[in-house]
């Protein structure tokens, strides 16, 4: 008679298990994540994964997508295109994910894109560079999307601000990496239409520690503003070198990759008065109530704090991109009505009015980013913090 209690227990367990299964309602939808959690881009990749996990938990807490929870399977790409390609294949072929979020850098994005385009896998990337969705020699981008603003959008924002200040003559200092190269191309391409002339050009090595010589040469051309295009500490170094030069100086404008507490910390007093376009995350408190992004941005910041992420990775302009990628993914899945790659792709490129942290997304088959100049604000450093520039 020892069998009976055992059987009863087994039956009970089965009941319990089915009760739990009913709660989550249906199989989870698998989403792949590629984040550079080590290597040179780890400072972007690691917080991106944490935000992705936070967003997935939030989506699931609200009932998931069509009653099914999302499940994130993520791998570290080591900031290396070869490993990113390998991990993407593992996600698709072994883990059988529906779509991919990430990777973190443009080089990795291009390496992954080759495979995802050929095999029809929707990929929503959080890379800064435009080539992933530029077409032409960078290949088709039917299945590739990206959430950070295009470089051209940031350049337009800067030029619009300069025009309002009646500034027409500028000098540019751009990084030698892919990001800086992209910036230089767009700065040059959009200058004529915006009535801006580039009086001098210099380049910098993003791992360099002194750009005084370049700054000095640029100032010789007597520009009304100097635009610096680089990500990371080099921007702060440039600001310091700029501040240390003698004489009256023009405006210093940084690019949209720069707004972060780190910049303020590294540049110190030299940051005062510098300008840069940034996402609305950086000046959430000052947004007008009419801004549709305001509630989303404030809610994001609250969640970010609640999870304790602020202590590890103080909020910067990049923080929201993974949130936006998953917000787009959810909106796309809901519009598609079924977890199917073809349907998801079609739904994604016809999404309009999706409010995210980085802006209001209006995608089209030609525009796989969907953010306009309105998604950026012009920030000015005043008293050691970012404020909306007038």
């Amino acid at each position: 008679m020892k069998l009976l209690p055992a059987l009863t227990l087994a039956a009970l367990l089965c009941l319990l298990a089915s009760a739990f299964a009913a709660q989550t309602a249906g199989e989870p939808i698998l989403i792949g994540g590629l984040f550079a959690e080590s290597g040179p881009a780890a400072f972007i990749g690691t917080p991106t994964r944490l935000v992705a996990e936070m967003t997935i938990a939030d989506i699931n807490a609200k009932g998931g997508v069509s009653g099914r929870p999302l499940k994130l399977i993520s791998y570290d790409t080591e900031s290396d295109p070869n490993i990113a390609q390998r991990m993407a294949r593992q996600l698709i072929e072994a883990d059988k994910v529906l779509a991919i979020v990430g990777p973190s850098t443009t080089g990795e994005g291009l390496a992954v894109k080759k495979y995802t385009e050929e095999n029809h896998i929707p990929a929503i990337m959080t890379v800064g560079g435009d080539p992933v969705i530029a077409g032409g020699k960078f290949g088709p981008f039917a299945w590739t999307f990206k959430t950070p603003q295009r470089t051209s959008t940031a350049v337009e924002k800067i030029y619009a601000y300069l025009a309002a200040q009646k500034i027409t003559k500028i000098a540019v200092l751009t990084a030698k990496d892919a990001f800086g190269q992209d910036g230089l191309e767009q700065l040059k391409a959009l200058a004529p239409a915006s009535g801006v002339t580039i009086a001098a050009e210099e380049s910098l090595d993003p791992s360099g520690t002194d750009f005084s010589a370049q700054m000095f040469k640029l100032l010789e051309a007597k520009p009304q503003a100097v635009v610096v295009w680089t990500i990371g500490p080099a921007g702060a170094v440039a600001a310091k070198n700029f501040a240390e030069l003698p004489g009256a100086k023009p405006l210093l404008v940084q690019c949209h990759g720069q707004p972060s507490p780190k910049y303020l910390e590294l540049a110190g007093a030299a940051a005062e008065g510098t300008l840069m376009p940034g996402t609305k995350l950086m000046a959430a408190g000052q947004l007008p109530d009419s801004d549709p992004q305001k509630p989303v941005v404030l809610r994001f910041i609250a969640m970010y704090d609640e999870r304790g992420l602020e202590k590890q990775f103080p909020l910067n302009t990049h923080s929201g991109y993974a949130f936006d990628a998953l917000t787009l993914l959810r909106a796309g899945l809901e519009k598609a009505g079924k977890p199917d790659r073809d349907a998801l792709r079609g739904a994604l490129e016809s999404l309009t009015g999706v409010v995210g942290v980085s802006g209001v997304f209006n995608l089209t088959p030609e525009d796989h980013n969907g953010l306009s100049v309105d998604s950026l604000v012009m920030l000015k450093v005043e008293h050691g913090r970012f404020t909306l520039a007038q």
Partner: protein
Amino acid sequence: MAAARARAAGTSLFALLAVLGCVLPDYELLAVSQHLFLAVNVMALNFCLGLGGQVSLAQGAFCGLGAYASALLHPELPGGSLAIAAVVATAVYALAAAVSRPLEKLGEGFLAMATLAVTLIFTNLILSLSPLTGGTAGMMVDSKLSLPFLGAITGDKPYYFLFLGLLLASVLVFARVRASRLGRALLACHDDPEAASACGVNRAAVRSLAFGLGGALSALAGMLQAHYSGFVSPGQYSLELSLKALLFLVIGGPGRILGPIAAVLLLETALSKIHFLGEARVLVHGLLLGLALLWGPVGAFRTGRAGFTNAPGAGT
């Protein structure tokens, strides 16, 4: 006896790799192919360092030259993969041999610096020709390799076996060269350059031959890699590749064949399994190199014959 045992070990290693190629799922093959690509570069470096005793950090540049040349030539000459491979290999052979001639006069440390400069020059060349090469961002390679009887090469298995074939070819050429008069001349330069010259070895000539062979081999590996990954960027062929090749060759033992190949395959696989360590992987890399330099085949604390040389400092 020892030679027969080495041949048996080599045959079983390649047989094992061939079996792996048939049974592994495609996405796992990609990883092994990437390791094989590195292994070919290690063998390429083995010609200069293992035989000639010259430390070269130019492998990345030669590999990149092959990759970019093939990516740029294929659209002009579709279907001409074999001809392109021949042209690329010959051109890079000539370039590497020419570069090595003046460098031969330099002492060990300075030679490493000069070859490092070759890699940096290559990167800057790619950056400054950005309308052609796509600059830092790199470019997509849409053209396919096509070989007689096989047609256009696509998919993981064909590329895996091409890499394996290239590695096998490099091993056979290396073994032949090592056993030849040229190989002995190179080993003489390796052990004692002055004595070799005194014995009538034309040092610059034999070493430039070894340098050229290594360059051509790297270029072919780069060519395969470019079409396999479908994407080339200067970052893939930077100093990092040169350093990795040097690291694994030193760990596996310069001048040997199976040691370096086994080092690449085993350690790269192991390193890719310790993802969870994050940044600490760099530390593991450093520790490995340190251990290899102390107790490895050319290690300082290794008793007895190191590889097949006992010249002081020859392993650096």
